[in-house]
């Protein structure tokens, strides 16, 4: 079910840029048609659908917990974190999630779809547009201008910290 991200990384091509100067690698994900990027080093795994156990009384953004090779992973519904409605899913469409390590704990971020790994150049980076949705702004590190698309860099630690009881 899980693909090896690193391998995929090697195979991925970067048509947009000639790789010079400072670059960063991102795993791209799609939520509600919007392209997001997660710094590749934060990503541990990409999972297909696994059995999720619901956790009663947990914050609504927490979908439950699942067993990833003997480790318990907390599943986070990123759509809910971003204030988006639940995804309308076809019969054969499966949930995808990206497992990240935060503070020595594993979290599985449930998203709509996983794309390629992209190597992005620093010169295409821009900070958040001032008018960006306030929730989005709080979990975005900035944006990359790609050909025909904008990629939002997801601030994973911030996304997860927002769920901590203290907040």
């Amino acid at each position, binding site marked *: 079910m899980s693909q090896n991200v690193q391998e995929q990384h090697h195979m991925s091509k970067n048509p947009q840029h000639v790789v010079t100067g400072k670059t960063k690698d991102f795993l791209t994900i799609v939520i509600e048609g919007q392209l997001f990027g997660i710094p590749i080093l934060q990503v541990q795994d990409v999972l297909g659908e696994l*059995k999720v*156990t*619901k*956790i*009663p*009384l*947990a*914050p609504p953004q*927490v979908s*439950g*917990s*699942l*067993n990833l090779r*003997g480790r*318990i992973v*907390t599943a986070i519904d990123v759509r809910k974190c971003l204030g988006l409605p639940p995804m309308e899913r076809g019969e054969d469409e499966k949930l995808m999630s990206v497992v990240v390590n935060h*503070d020595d*704990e594993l*979290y599985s971020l449930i998203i709509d779809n996983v794309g390629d790994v992209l190597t992005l150049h620093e010169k295409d980076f821009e900070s958040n547009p001032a008018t960006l949705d306030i929730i989005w702004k709080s979990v975005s590190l900035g944006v990359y201008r790609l050909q025909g698309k904008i990629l939002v860099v997801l601030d994973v630690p911030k996304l*997860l910290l927002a*769920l*901590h*009881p203290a907040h």
Partner: protein
Amino acid sequence: MDDLIIEFLTETNESLMELDTDLIKLEQNPNDKDLISKIFRLMHTIKGTCGFLGLPRLETVAHRAENVMGRFRDGDLEVTAEYVSLILESLDRVRYLLGHIEEHGTEPEGNDTDLTTRLDAVYEGRDAFQTGQTTPGPVELPEEDPVEVAAHDPLADIFDTIEIPVATPAAIEPSHQPVAAAAPPQTKEATESAVANQSLRVNMDVLENLMTMVSELVLTRNQLLQISRTEKENSFITPLQRLNHVVSDLQEGVMKTRMQPIGNAWAKLPRIIRDLSIELGKKIDLIMIGQDTELDRQVLDMIKDPLTHMVRNSGDHGIEVPTERIKAGKPETGKIHLRAYHEGGHIIIEIADDGKGLPTEKIRQKLISNGLVSEEESKKLTPQQVHQYIFHAGLSTAEKVTSVSGRGVGMDVVRTNIEKIGGSIEMKSVEGKGSTFFIKIPLTLAIVSSLIVESAGERFAIPQLAVRELVLVSQKSENRIEMIKNTPVFRLREKLLPLVSLEDLLKIGQHSGENFEDRFEHKYIIVTQVGNYSFGLIVDQVFDTEEIVVKPVAKILKNIELFSGNTILGDGSVIMILDPGGIAKVTGESNLSDASQDSQEAAEKLISDKKTSLLVFTAGPGSPKAVPLSLISRLENIDMNSVEETDGQMLVQYRGALMPIIPFSDQMDLSKDKMKPLLVFADRGKSVGLIVDEIVDIREEIIDIQLEGKRKGVFGSAIISGKASEIVDVMHFLNSVHGDWFKDHGDDPFLASDKAKKEGKSGTKRILLVDDSPFFRNMLCPLLTAAGYEVIAVEGPSKALELTERDENFDLIISDIEMPDMNGYDFATRVRASEKWQNTPMVALTSHATPEDIDHGYESGFDEYIAKFDRDTLLSTISKTLSRGADA
């Protein structure tokens, strides 16, 4: 060898070894302050410890060396190569002495004046080097070369790889050459500690890691076993079983590495008590029993502070100053007993002092002044209830706030800490006599046995330690849930049990508009106990129990109090572990309700003194039968197909052994292909199963046998829940299978009695049994007779006292407490006042034993106080009491 010495040797050897690597540096940089300080500290530690352990020779060397090192450290003496040699020589001498102690347990004969005079010379500044002389004036070749001796030491024979080392150059030739650099590795080998070789210090992280991995392995094994169960014919089964065993052993082994003697947590206590007694001008003895009791390191860490706090409390609040103690007629020196022992998967720690006890009135006043209770309410509180408040925040009874305790934080924190690890704390205190605290803690936190339950389609685990019993309810039967203003309750043996629906609690499942009769149809109640508070948890389904590995929940879920962790089950799914303590807290348990429930229970106990829990069942034709529940160890269902018969005896394979089983009556339908309930009576590896037709109920009743039984195996008939029922004589069935049920225990009480038997009739001990209940008389007489005593049973104290008139003599009197014409306390007082029996030992036997009762019992003149039905204690107490009487 003394444990302390072994520990000292291990530690010192370790420090020495560590120094070895650094010593080379000392050659290159003789004035390395860090290193000098290190050696100084080592010498200092050795000196201090030796004084304590009584090793004068080592102490002297260390002391003198420390002096010199002190000068080096302070910088008023420059370290030259000569001094380096001297330092090394001192270290070698220490090593040699240590080696000898390790080998023989004592210091070698002789003295170290050769070395110490030189050390003193350096210390006092009158040695040759200091004056710039290079000729070794005072440094003579010592007559007794330490290394040489070490080499010829028998130790060398043990390590046959060791070659006799060249004598340390430093000792032989105090030259300018830094030859000493070569010395350490050799000497190290020579004195390599045998003790150190037996134990190994491992970083805690390594162990923790191992534990985690074993936990994973356990989970994987569970998964594999689950898969193999579904596929019958499978070539994996045999290797899987092997794997299963190995993993179990491995788990046990790794768990063992985490176990530490509780003594480790106690090590500081004697010192604390000593300091305390000096500071407060008290005389206190700390007596520690059971230091070797082992428990998980994690648990140990958690209880270390609470324990220290409590012992300190006992010293500060409990024990009085000597003058006060003498006034109270107590010995000047107070005693604090610290005791640890295992009890059924738990560790019990007792902290008892013989001090002044809790000042009930003072606490009561304090409660009022702190606004915890109103004056009106406080009057209604029993002393016990008042005492419970010491576990409340913001209450300190010490009049003066000492530096020791009495800052108003304390017992509440202790209680919280102990409950956090699934333990409980109880206390009894008698004013003027002292207080005793009982702490009950689980052995380990890592792996717990849990009950898996289901509610609204979700599964949860509940630690089995908290589960008292399970009840299946049906709204159409007597076992039904009732409602008081949307609050479900259940009548459990004539008591209302507050209920909590797990669905509602966790806000899962929908129940709008459904009436409660339908909602609670066919549910299970999990009777859960937290401390003294019991409640029922309503769930849909109960599965089996599983050994689970508790993993902490993710940080973002930490604030959900209802879960203590999560885990992965055998089938690979993640499951949340419910925290009974958290549930109790959320659903409204408070300290006060705790206490009131206590007193309520105590009150009920008083009323129901004569009440016995009886298991009611049917077997064959005729009226229902009843048997005291406390005699039964387990209830099982057996498949009659699995029953085998050899030599006319029905047998069944049970827990890996053959268990004889007996049908209660010949007229029962024992045809194959049926499941039958089985009452299992077990005792030290021996079990007997009694087949019955149906288990009807458990009742608490006063057993009043109205008709004597005619048949064997029946005491007689009594009315139980309105029906005439037969009270079963369990002994009859047990003896019919194991004729020797009571006799071959090989235990002390029986040995004593066997001996008594051999000595002939005259040696047989006579016991007077006073009990108004024919049931107990019938129950105990055969028991005591079987144990070799001659028993005279009478139905009341007045009858017993009549026997005095008839010149009857007994070796022991066993008496009930609650009896109609005269209670046991008065009886004891009368016996003590009588001429003839005043020295006869007396044992009180009762079904209720609150601390007050027990104290009252002792005051009245009983020597022992034991609970009814506790057969083993009864027998051992009798034997103990009798032998004590014989010695006196």
